[in-house]
């Protein structure tokens, strides 16, 4: 029985092998010169769009695949892999997709008289292969795929040959991973420019969540994507598409940690308004409001935080205090002017419910949310010997009083003197996002403050709406959003080589024009961080 040898870094293998790593050549660049060359596995959504592009018809077969996990809060990260379960799921899906392709083969495969069968097969392979791999098929790949075509044809027809090629494409590594490796001629340890086709893919997936369209592929072929102006032009063109708007919606949802809203659960004894339908209403508001920020305000974070309106269904219009709605659409969503205690996305029921417990609000979760997601601060985990159980519910005190006692422990105070004033300032909203002035018969104290990193209170506020108004003009927040966007779009944390990029984002049109995320995106695609990678040293 052949036992495949495998590497164990976490377990020390008894027979330690000698160190044989070689030292790089003299012309190597330092690691800080550019982010490492890499491959990125398609997400489920990207798989669907990529397969649809090959077939020329919309498919959603990847919805049943194993879900992505999140890194830094984003599901678009570079650590996604094809594990055994996913490989099996893709294997099965490829059969279905190839059947689909076979049923519409006349769009993909043509063999005019006078041409040899092999030539027709090659033309087919080039056509579908380029769409699947998002670049021209190499000679070696063409010959491998032709062999496969002929294997599939055996005992069958041209159609069965084509079907087998499609099945291979949909489950191949070249389809499943986007490469950021540069040309094959690059030398180890060097910084390289990505190939024009890699740039086209990176740009398209970043803006639309799908593969490059014909226009973008033509630009890659023409070699014009090395120009920042051309990349900006293509980006602005694609930003007008519905796919781009959905991709930006996903950024806002994941940045704000609201992807779990459709799983939020509340204690009905404490919150009689809560129901699955109510939860759906909160999800609908989240989506409709974000969509309007994206569509009507170019993804302006300032508008996101300080809009005095929202889009809600009847349930939430009533919940927010019997608000009257205008422009109610087919989906039952209409625009409302918010009451003074609410402002922007922060005070939406869905946000306040997400950052809360099953049966109460959570000043700690809310404080940490604003600090880490909106201000990019690091909040260390509680010390290991401290109990992190929330204080017990009480019927004769406010949540603030319960938590204030809890975190007066000196071991906790170091961090909680920053977390608590932020979280306590949102105590005018309960665990289901209802506005309140009293809790258990006691008046609610929603005074808080944004504590600067050096520990001084710089900006006192009272209530969620005041906080939102402050955040909309907060420099720390304005500087944080580009970093979060880089994490989402690049699928990794900040790299040493991103300093110039982040500076450009933080001082460019995004900063001067209402914190429009679309402008941050344009700065990103224009940058060297976007097109340069460092090759491995071995």
């Amino acid at each position, binding site marked *: 029985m052949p036992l495949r040898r495998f590497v164990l870094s976490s*377990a020390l293998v008894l027979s330690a092998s000698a160190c044989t790593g070689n030292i790089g050549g003299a012309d190597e660049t330092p690691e800080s010169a550019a982010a490492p060359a890499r491959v990125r596995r398609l997400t489920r959504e990207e798989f669907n769009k990529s397969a649809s592009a090959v077939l020329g018809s919309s498919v959603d077969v990847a919805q049943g695949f194993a879900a992505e996990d999140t890194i830094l809060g984003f599901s678009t990260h570079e650590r996604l892999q094809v594990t055994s379960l996913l490989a099996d799921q893709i294997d099965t899906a490829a059969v279905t997709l190839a059947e689909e392709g076979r049923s519409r083969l006349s769009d993909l495969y043509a063999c005019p008289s006078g041409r040899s069968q092999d030539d027709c097969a090659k033309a087919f392979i080039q056509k579908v292969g380029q769409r699947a791999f998002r670049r021209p098929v190499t000679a070696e790949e063409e010959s491998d795929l032709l062999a496969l075509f002929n294997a599939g044809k055996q005992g069958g027809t041209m159609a069965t040959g084509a079907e087998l090629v499609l099945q291979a494409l949909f489950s191949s590594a070249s389809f499943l991973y986007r490469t950021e490796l540069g040309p094959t001629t690059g030398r180890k340890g060097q910084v390289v420019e990505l190939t024009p086709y890699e740039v086209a893919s990176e740009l398209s997936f970043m803006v639309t969540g799908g593969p490059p369209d014909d226009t973008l592929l033509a630009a890659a072929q023409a070699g014009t994507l090395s120009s920042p102006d051309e990349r900006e032009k293509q980006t602005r063109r694609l930003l007008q598409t519905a796919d781009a708007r959905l991709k930006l919606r996903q950024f806002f949802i994941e940045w704000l940690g609201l992807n779990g809203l459709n799983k939020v659960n509340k204690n009905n004894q404490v919150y009689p308004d809560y129901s699955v339908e109510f939860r759906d209403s909160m999800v609908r508001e989240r989506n409709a409001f974000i969509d309007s920020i994206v569509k009507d305000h170019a993804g302006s974070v300032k508008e996101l935080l300080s809009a005095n309106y929202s889009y809600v269904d009847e349930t939430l219009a009533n919940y927010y205090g019997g608000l009257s709605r205008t422009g109610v659409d087919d989906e039952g969503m209409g625009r409302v002017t918010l009451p003074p205690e609410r402002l922007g996305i922060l005070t939406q029921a869905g946000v306040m419910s997400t950052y809360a417990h*099953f049966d109460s609000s959570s000043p700690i979760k809310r404080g940490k949310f604003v600090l880490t997601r909106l201000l990019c601060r690091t909040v260390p985990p509680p010390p290991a010997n401290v109990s992190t159980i929330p204080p017990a519910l009480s019927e004769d005190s406010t949540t603030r009083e319960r938590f204030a006692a809890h975190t007066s422990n000196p071991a906790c105070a170091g961090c909680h003197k920053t977390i608590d004033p932020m979280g306590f300032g949102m105590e005018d909203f309960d665990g289901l996002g209802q506005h309140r002035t009293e809790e258990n018969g006691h008046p609610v104290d929603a005074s808080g403050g944004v504590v600067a990193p050096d520990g001084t209170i710089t900006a006192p506020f009272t209530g969620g709406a005041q906080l939102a108004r402050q955040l909309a003009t907060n420099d720390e927040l304005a500087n944080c959003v580009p970093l979060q966007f880089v994490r989402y779009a690049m699928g990794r944390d900040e790299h040493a080589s991103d300093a110039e990029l982040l500076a450009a984002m933080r001082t460019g049109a995004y900063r001067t024009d209402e914190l429009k995320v679309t402008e941050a995106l344009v700065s990103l695609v224009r940058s060297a961080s976007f097109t340069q990678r460092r090759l491995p040293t071995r």
Partner: protein
Amino acid sequence: MPRDISRRSLLKLLSGTAMAAPFGHLLTSSVAEAADAAPLRFIALFTPHGGLPEYWTPKGGELDFNIDFENSVLQPLQRHRSKLLVLDGLDYRVLYEHGRTGHEGGPVTFLTGSEVVVDSGDELPSGASLDQVIGNAVGGVTQFRSLQLHAFEQFGAQHVYNSISFTENGSRVPFELNPANLYKRLFGSMGGSSAEAQAILMKRKSLMDYLIKDATRLKKRLATAEGQKLDTHLAALRDIERRLTNTGALNCAKPEAPSDELSDLGDINNMPGLTKLHMDLIARAFACDLTRVVTMTIPGPSMPWIGIDEDIHNDIAHRTDTQTEPERTEIRLRMVRVQQWYSEQLALLMDSLAAIPEGSGTVLDNTVILWGNELGDAAGHMNVTIPTVLAGGAGGKFRMGRCLRLRPGKDPLGNWPGPGSPLPGAVEHNKLLTSIAQAFGVNVDRFGHPDYTGTLSGLT
């Protein structure tokens, strides 16, 4: 999988009969007929909420340990007492000595022995979990190196609380939630007939050759860390390739498909049924030698079928440190009901495995089950004295029917000044992981965090 798993046959597969015990009939392991010695299998079972020392800890000594007392959490396992090795006093030491404790650390370290790494912004281990390591060592002869199952998704896919299995680069291994899909994956390609099957097989082989070549071409261009992604991918492709010609052990009967009555995976009332279907499929997979390594998580948001309608995490676990009586006892006894239900699931799993004869014994005799928890005492949220049980015959590798007191004495936290200071008498669970790895022939002297070395003494 060949074409017989197309949409048409899927419908057929799924149109099962009623819910009544789809695999209830007596099975015989086909492995014993095919091999001289029965293989050793590994199951890791993970359940949440922490323990209750006074109700969980067996009374008595090593051999005369007693779990048959009033409100004993382990009481449902009494019928399998001779195949239990209860480990009292094992710690997730790496968590409180290297950074992070509380709930989140448990699932991360349970099978990895790793500290929690938060560089990525998420809570992940630094290396592979025991199931992956064992699967790579022994799983290569079976159709699936390992299976990852989950009885009920509570937090959204691949949440830190959902995942106990990790690849070499510390990424989560996705799990199967739906027993119907698991059935298709395990048994979908079984059966089918000759001529057409042979033609399909030839094409499948050409396809796999191409996919492996394509992935290998890409891997050659990558640095070590990036290349690990393709290593994982290539291992999965080779498993598929191997399955083309290795159709499982001889004479293995394809079981009936599970009913689709429980298709609503989000309905909490379906959790007991889903748990049972998963466990029955584990037994069937072992009987057919389709895999030898399984991990399974059973969460517990609430348990209406035993009258626990409240949120167990917030309304029971977080309240177990209530000091006033009678509330304290009432709340703790509600947690006992929850934990007894988990014990019962393990007992049922053992029943299923014990119902499959193998050689002169049963499949249970040749299985090691590791049952772990996220926390020690639910009240303290600490990672000290984690409720840990080894179950099954373990192929004679461990001496069962005992209870080991790894840290005698009470309340180790009483005088502890906190992290950075050693905790008297602490025994790290890394030792247990190393012992289990060695039982499967994996040549390691430590597992997980490199600070912790050696095996757990007294197991053999």
